[in-house]
């Protein structure tokens, strides 16, 4: 970095250093792959009978989040606060990346039928500006959501892609698309004003102070298990929901009492202790409102999801809900806090981890059962939803498919044990499994299970046996921290 020359040169070189993060930051590579995968959502709707062009907004939005999080990470480092000439660099970085990405994405309107030259140029520009608005929406969510972990923004952030999909179902994208094509100058003007306000917001004096040294979690932190653990500990230490302290207090007294009835320095005492810590960890995360949200959210989403592609009556479209939690459990740590030395040998740890797996499985199984009952009850009340040519009919979950969860969950536990210290591998496997299950469910369109109950029982025995074997090897032969 040149320091002696004029300020502009220095600022430019700081910007260049910031831009290098785009290929130097390993955590971004995974997101580039995810972004590339989104091109399907851009290209495929363009080939429909009534082509749709706004799929690129997903890429704009995600790119904005990525750029925002890159800057959050930099702003978070105390040295960045003291860097001369760095104050306005985040804004330049975000805007430059946004201009390039959306400038290119706007070219999708080249394929819009019937637009002649030079009119198409104005449409391309307007498309780029609208993309920029969505890009900056992603950036804003990244900047505001990461500041306070656990803040409402975070939940909003999680919902954003969902809202984009819902918007697409409701046909908002077509309205937006037609507005761009019909009134490109107006749309570009409105978008420009919104971008200008964001430009001002990103240039505020307090930006550096707001993020310097704060506890932030970005979308790339899966690479850093220590940070993930630090954040997890920090989150767990926050004041919980009403009644949580009482519940955990009761849990502590109950399990300490149960432990005291086991033999000192025996396996039983450790297993009970491990159940206590596993259960406590779950209850801290699952507040009553989170549980209600999960149960109702799953029941509603998957109930209506079954109608997509005319899937009513098919197995997977609705009952895929039983596989999703199994995949999520891939992130469960079955041996919490191994460095807290308590008198338990590797054999005891084997039984302790097994007990943790059982507790987590049962707890999730109970939640799924409740979601199933709720969905069956809702089936009698929820109306059909008509969206243009699509009719979404609610279909309740089928309790007979609940065993799917119990059969497949050991696969997640195997991954969780094998890659305990590599969160990013777990995330990649999780994403891959989700894709496989989603595509598989669409493609198979099964009306009957491919294997009978005995086959599933056998599969369950094999998978649980595999998990026991993996766990045994881990506890006997591998490092525990």
């Amino acid at each position, binding site marked *: 970095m040149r320091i002696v020359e004029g300020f502009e040169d220095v600022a430019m070189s700081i910007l260049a250093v910031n831009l290098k993060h785009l290929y130097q930051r390993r955590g971004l590579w995974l997101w580039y792959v995810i972004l590339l995968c989104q091109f399907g959502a851009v290209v495929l709707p363009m080939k429909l009978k009534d082509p749709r062009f706004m799929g690129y907004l997903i890429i704009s939005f995600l790119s904005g989040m990525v750029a925002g999080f890159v800057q959050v990470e930099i702003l978070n480092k105390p040295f960045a606060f003291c860097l001369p000439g760095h104050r306005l660099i985040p804004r330049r970085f975000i805007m430059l990346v946004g201009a390039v990405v959306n400038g290119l994405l706007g070219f999708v309107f080249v394929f819009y039928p019937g637009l002649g030259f030079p009119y198409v140029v104005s449409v391309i520009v307007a498309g780029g500006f609208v993309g920029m608005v969505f890009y900056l929406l992603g950036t804003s969510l990244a900047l505001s959501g990461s500041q306070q972990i656990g803040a409402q923004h975070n939940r909003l952030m999680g919902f954003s892609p969902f809202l984009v999909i819902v918007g697409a179902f409701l046909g908002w994208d077509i309205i937006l698309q037609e507005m761009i094509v019909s009134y490109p100058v107006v749309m570009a003007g409105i978008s420009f004003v919104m971008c200008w306000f964001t430009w001002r917001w990103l240039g505020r004096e307090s930006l550096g102070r707001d993020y310097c040294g704060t506890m932030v979690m970005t979308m790339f932190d899966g690479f850093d298990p220590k940070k993930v653990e630090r954040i997890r500990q920090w989150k*767990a230490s926050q004041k919980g929901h009403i009644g949580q302290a009482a519940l955990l207090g009761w849990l502590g007294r109950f399990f300490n009492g149960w432990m005291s009835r086991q033999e000192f320095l025996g396996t039983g005492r450790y297993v009970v202790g491990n159940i206590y810590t596993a259960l406590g*960890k779950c209850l801290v995360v699952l507040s009553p409102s989170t549980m209600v949200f999960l149960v109702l959210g799953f029941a509603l989403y998957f109930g209506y999801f079954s109608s997509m592609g005319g899937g009513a009556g098919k197995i997977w479209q609705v009952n895929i809900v039983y596989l999703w939690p199994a995949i999520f459990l891939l992130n469960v740590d079955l041996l919490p806090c191994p460095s807290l030395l308590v*008198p338990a*040998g590797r054999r005891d740890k084997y039984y302790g981890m097994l007990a943790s797996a059982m507790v987590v499985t049962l707890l999730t199984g109970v939640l799924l059962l409740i979601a199933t009952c709720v969905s069956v009850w809702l089936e009698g009340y929820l109306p059909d939803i008509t969206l243009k040519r699509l009719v979404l009919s609610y279909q309740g979950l089928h309790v007979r498919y609940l065993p799917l969860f119990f059969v497949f969950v050991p696969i997640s536990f195997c991954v969780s044990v094998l890659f305990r210290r590599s969160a990013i591998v777990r995330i990649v496997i999780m994403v891959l499994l989700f894709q496989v299950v989603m595509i598989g469910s669409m493609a198979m369109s099964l009306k009957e299970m491919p294997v009978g109950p005995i086959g599933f029982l056998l599969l369950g025995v094999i998978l649980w046996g595999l998990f026991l074997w993996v766990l045994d090897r881990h506890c006997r032969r591998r*490092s525990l921290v």
Partner: protein
Amino acid sequence: MNGDNAIIEMHKVSKRFGHIKALDNVDLEICPGRIIGLVGANGSGKSTLLRHMIGLYLADEGQCVTFGCDAAKLGPKELGRIGYVHQEGELLGWMKTRQLIRYVSAYYPTWNRELEEQYIADFDISTKARVGSLSPGQRQKLAILLAVCFEPEFLILDEPASALDPIARGQFLDLLLKIIQDEKRTIIISSHILSDVEKVIDHLLIMKKGTLLRDCSFDDLREEYCRVKLTLLSGSLPATLPFGPMVDCVREGGSAIITLQNYTREEIEDKAKAMNCEAEVQALTLEDIYRIVVGE
């Protein structure tokens, strides 16, 4: 360090993490009743060595025996005699401090409630706060309390004082001295704060790049090295001082400060007298000795 009743015996222990050799053919015996300092640069293998002792890591080659049992097969009976403070102070963040103490105490038949209350008061630990909300220093104090209150025979302290303030560090060192009054107790302490370590240890292990450079009594090591200030009484200092190979030598006019290895006080005084010099012999600090041993 030789003894038939060694509580830790490591024989040719090696451990690799990918391309990095964290431990390289380490041989070590630890006898009871000692307070051992383990020093070395970052990444020299100190934590890896300590984790092998309790079976958290398993050796790629060689054998580690703790309390007569292969470290890989340590059971509750052996581990119940060992206290361990982890470098990063990772604890169950969602519990309140008192809940965590009760949880850990439930494992030990020898848990000393009086000691617990005393340390809570001495260390000023907030029992109602959530563990995850404690400052790093408070968390470290809590980790020390959890490792000490069941009165373990063998206490492993991996960077236990790095986050403590000077007063808490003083209290912590007093605590170690109190613990070691019981002759059966053994403490191994890994730390970068050498000025603290040298106040309490009687044995020293120095590590560099996964190997054990020194394993000896701290008193022996202090006697092995010394710093001598030679002041000329009359005449001039000879161009070559008669001490053979010196560790270090700084000359200034009619005086010189030299660092020597394996010389007795009498030998130094005799040679100084022969040069018509006055010799002031000083013991080296642990930090000085460490620098010499690791060659910096």
